[in-house]
């Protein structure tokens, strides 16, 4: 009898493993990878540089998706990530290029501002029970306005306006060059390493900290969590705040890559970040998902775009194909459930 139960248990476990979201996300990635090997653009797909550039290109989006993942697990959404990226890109350029702040101070200031604005969204959602979609939509509009206001609508670049009306070019600060560089014999971009760090932070929060447990519980059943004594408001505040913090990191990276702070930067990035999370398999209803899924989702989207671009597919077809494939991937994950 007991033996039989054990066997049953095992076969069930096997089935659970096949149904595991991580495996499904990975299957989608492998599929895209196989497509890449098929349409390898005369072997371009087999060169490490292609993969390095893919990772570098997707890093900024993936950093946004890290915070987005945590927010989505609480059954929320953060539409403000693109705008917060734009704002912090402008601020970082302003502080470093024009105000000549020390890099450490500029970095810290941007991170604090990003986290603070994220926390404001979290407060609106948690304390005032505004729907996450609305609260972060408002923050998205507000932060974009703020970015345009502090920059005067201009791109903040190394050409600094002097009191006499002329432009003088300042040297690119070393922090910009470092963030935009590649390490290990040019084999991996610094932004990609930053992404790895962000993924690690999220992984620790979600799997090792009490905070992570709160996030899952709130997304799984907010009222049950509240009645179980979980501090729902504080948790939301912190989680949206963390999302804002990641936006600042992404914004700093973006500024370094573009060598300027563009108040228009990050437009529609929130949509890419959400797509990454969803393709990874984190449930928009909340309570289920993980950062590993998001990382795989980011690679899937990254490869997809890379394959389309090395095969010189035009932008129009590329967008249409990407849209179709997102739906395909999501349907694929659904049917497997």
């Amino acid at each position, binding site marked *: 009898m007991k033996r039989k139960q054990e066997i049953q248990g095992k076969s069930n476990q096997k089935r659970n493993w096949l149904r595991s979201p991580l495996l499904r996300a990975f299957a989608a990635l492998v599929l895209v990878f196989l497509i890449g090997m098929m349409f390898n653009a005369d072997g371009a797909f087999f060169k490490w540089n292609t993969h390095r550039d893919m990772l570098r290109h997707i890093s900024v989006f993936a950093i946004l998706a890290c915070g987005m993942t945590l927010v989505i697990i609480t059954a929320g959404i953060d539409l403000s990530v693109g705008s917060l990226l734009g704002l912090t890109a402008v601020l970082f350029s302003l502080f470093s290029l024009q105000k000549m702040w020390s890099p450490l101070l500029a970095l810290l200031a941007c991170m604090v501002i990003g986290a603070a604005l994220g926390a404001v969204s979290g407060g609106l959602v948690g304390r005032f029970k505004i729907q996450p979609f609305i609260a972060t939509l408002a923050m998205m509009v507000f932060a974009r306005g703020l970015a345009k206001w502090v920059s005067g609508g201009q791109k903040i670049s190394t050409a600094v306006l002097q009191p006499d009306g002329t432009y003088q070019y300042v040297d690119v600060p070393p922090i910009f060059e470092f963030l935009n560089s590649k390490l290990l014999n040019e084999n991996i971009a610094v932004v990609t390493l930053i992404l790895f760090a962000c993924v690690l932070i999220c992984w620790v929060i979600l799997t090792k900290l009490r905070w992570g*447990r709160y996030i*899952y519980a709130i997304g799984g059943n907010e009222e049950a969590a509240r009645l179980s*004594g979980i501090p729902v408001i504080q948790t939301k505040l912190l989680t949206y705040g963390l999302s804002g913090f990641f936006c600042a990191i992404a914004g700093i990276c973006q500024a370094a890559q573009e060598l300027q702070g563009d108040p228009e930067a990050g437009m529609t990035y929130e949509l890419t970040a959400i797509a990454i999370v969803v393709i990874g398999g984190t449930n928009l209803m909340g309570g289920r998902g993980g950062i590993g899924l998001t990382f795989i989702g980011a690679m899937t989207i990254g490869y997809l775009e890379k394959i389309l671009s090395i095969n010189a597919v035009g932008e129009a077809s590329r967008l249409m194909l990407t849209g179709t494939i997102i739906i395909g991937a999501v349907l694929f994950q659904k049917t497997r459930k």
Partner: protein
Amino acid sequence: MHSGHREALLQMEHITKSFSGVKVLEDVFFDLNQGEVHVLAGENGAGKTTLIKILAGVHTDYEGDIRLNGQPIRFKNPHDAAESGISAIHQDMSLINSMTVVDNIFLGREHTIGKVWMDFRTQKERAQKLIDQLGIDVNLNFPVEEYPVSVRQMIEIAKALAYDARIIIMDEPTSALNELEVERLFQIIQDLKQKNYGIIYITHRMEEIYEISDRITVLRDGKRIGTAHADDLSPQELIQWMVGREISQQFPDRTPSTGKERLRVEHLYLPDPTGTKPWVVEDINLSLNSGEILGIAGLRGSGKSELFHGLFGTFGKIPDGRVQLDGRPFRIHSPIHSIKQGLALLTNDRKGTGLVSPMNIIRNISLSSLRKYSPGGWMQFQEEKIAAQNHIEAFGIKAQSMHQEVETLSGGNQQKVVLAKWLEIHPKVLLLDEPTLGVDVGAKHDIYALMNRWTAQGMAILLITSELPELLALSDRIMVMHRGRSTAEFINEEATQEKITRAAMGDEKTYEKKTGNSG
């Protein structure tokens, strides 16, 4: 008394219905004549709602025959039933609050010109006629949400009439109405009777049954106990019919070991969170000793669950000074505060407010005591697991693995998981709202035994259960609530199902001991 021969509108014969192998209705007969109010009575779970849902086309796989005006009929869906002139007014009303009165009345049966264009004028004229007929004063173009529940109920009736319904089913229509509004409703029912409508009326309130019914049918445990003319059935007999089941469940012996006072509640008032009436709980006084189980009886809408939530802080702050725990003031602020002070609440909605379904057993058990397992914020998985393992053994939770998601457990095991979660905080007072709801007999017995064990250790329990035999067997004392107030209090030896049922229905003559002042 009964005005001669009336034509039969409806006959339901040999109705049998099972849910996953369990018979909820067995060989039930029910009929309805023109111009008649036929009350369907019985305890919760007797099968009233199932019978009504069969009639309204919600449940379609049943055995037995339904005849409408003598013609055999079998509804395929609710729309089908509505087309045949059967209209149900549910407790959770089917109006769309944001839409206007007139749109609601014709929802799904809009008057159109050429099947495309809305015929607003005809709709409005017809709606106005119906509203006038009911004698209510509403603006047809206002959204339904502008009106109080009582008016919405009338709008619902107007909707039923607009469907050309001949049979109107009212499922506890007065639960949200005040006395005046009830009177108005009864007038309308009388009107409808005159116009030869047939009305099936479900209620738990004694006074209503005798005020409006022509005939009464009582269901108990899925069987029809009897049908009688209202004049021929005394209230005593009616209650006997309703509750007179043999107590077949075995309850463990209980030896009360009450100690000093743990919980004291004085003149507690709770505002209605939905805002339909000023108070859901009025002037409640109670005292609970350690080791004691105080049962709270009352019908739906009596405020008993709200009393629990209010004490637990679900609705937020309540002014201090009304509640004491272990002789010290108990601050009602939020669930977090209540848990810290040693209060736990098992809600009556396991899925909605008890479990976090996507999480596994371990995580659900540790949910309320996470701080204990995460010094400095870092989770200590091993300790958490050991604690969960202990509870799984102590409660006899049957699962393939403790990593199993709670969604996949049976009702009884789910309930044990939620109970284990609350035991983890070592509560001083445990509020149990329907702890055996949807729980199989074996697990019920386990839960009874656990309750006895906990009280023997000094815990105090407030218990709500709508199963009277269970309440009688488990409680040391019983308080009965009716419309937010305490109407009677019994010690276990004095209490009987009849006395409790009467007090719960607000029958003043049977008050054993009045608590609180009624002013």
